[in-house]
């Protein structure tokens, strides 16, 4: 397992994504899947950076671990306000330019693209896990 702790600020984004990518690349995900994992890590982090600690500084811990049978678990932990991304509403992606809002799209990507997403609130912290398998079959984007 590897982990880093970064300030909950947009300035931490590129370093954090690079950390996850370097771990993930070793595990044999194809480039397309790697990019999707990067995308979802960004979306979760940006959401935390923007909303978890309103008006005050905070930290985010990101850890990566590989399990049996090519499983990758990325866990993102913050001590900010409780937020379960799994309970958020999906955006209406059928609207035209005038009606369309982009709010909620990042979380929608996470729910669509990751093999499994788990959330728990414990010790006044948000724990979000994104679990992917290198040998996973069906890709949501192709359905």
């Amino acid at each position, binding site marked *: 397992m590897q982990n880093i702790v970064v300030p909950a600020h*947009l300035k931490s*984004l*590129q370093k954090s*994504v690079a950390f996850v990518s370097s771990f993930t690349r070793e595990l044999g995900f194809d*480039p*397309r899947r790697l*990019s*999707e994992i*990067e*995308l979802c890590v*960004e*979306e979760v982090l*940006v959401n935390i*950076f923007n909303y978890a600690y309103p008006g005050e500084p905070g930290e985010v811990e990101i850890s990566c671990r590989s399990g049996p049978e090519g499983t990758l678990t990325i866990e993102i932990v913050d001590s900010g306000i409780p937020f379960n991304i799994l309970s958020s509403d999906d955006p209406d*992606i*059928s*609207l*035209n*330019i*005038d009606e*369309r809002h*982009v709010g909620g*799209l*990042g979380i*929608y*990507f996470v729910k*669509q*693209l990751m093999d499994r997403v788990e959330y728990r609130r414990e010790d006044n912290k948000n724990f979000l896990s994104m679990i992917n398998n290198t040998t996973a079959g069906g890709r*949501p*984007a192709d359905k």
Partner: protein
Amino acid sequence: MEISKKKEKDVLVVSVSGRIDAVTAPDFEKNLSESIGAGEKTFLIKMNQLEYISSAGLRSILAIAKVLKTKEGKMVFSELHGPVKDVFKISGFGSIFTIYDTEEDALKQF
């Protein structure tokens, strides 16, 4: 992220390369807003060298598209590939915007 622009008749062709993420999206939006401010109304965004876009990038694109619409302008795209194409598809942006396979195809429409 790098942006280069050229004018083809009335169309501003904007080639964007690299990554549009939450860090670079504001620069992308500002850059295009400046062109709108300079009077440009028709944009072709070439994405053949764009490797990555997140929801922050889509938010910028939508913001620009909304401004252009109030000015009776238009923004179309060409040469989406890989992860960028996937993101357009999943988000529904592939349906709300016109996307061409090549720059040539796009320019023929104007």
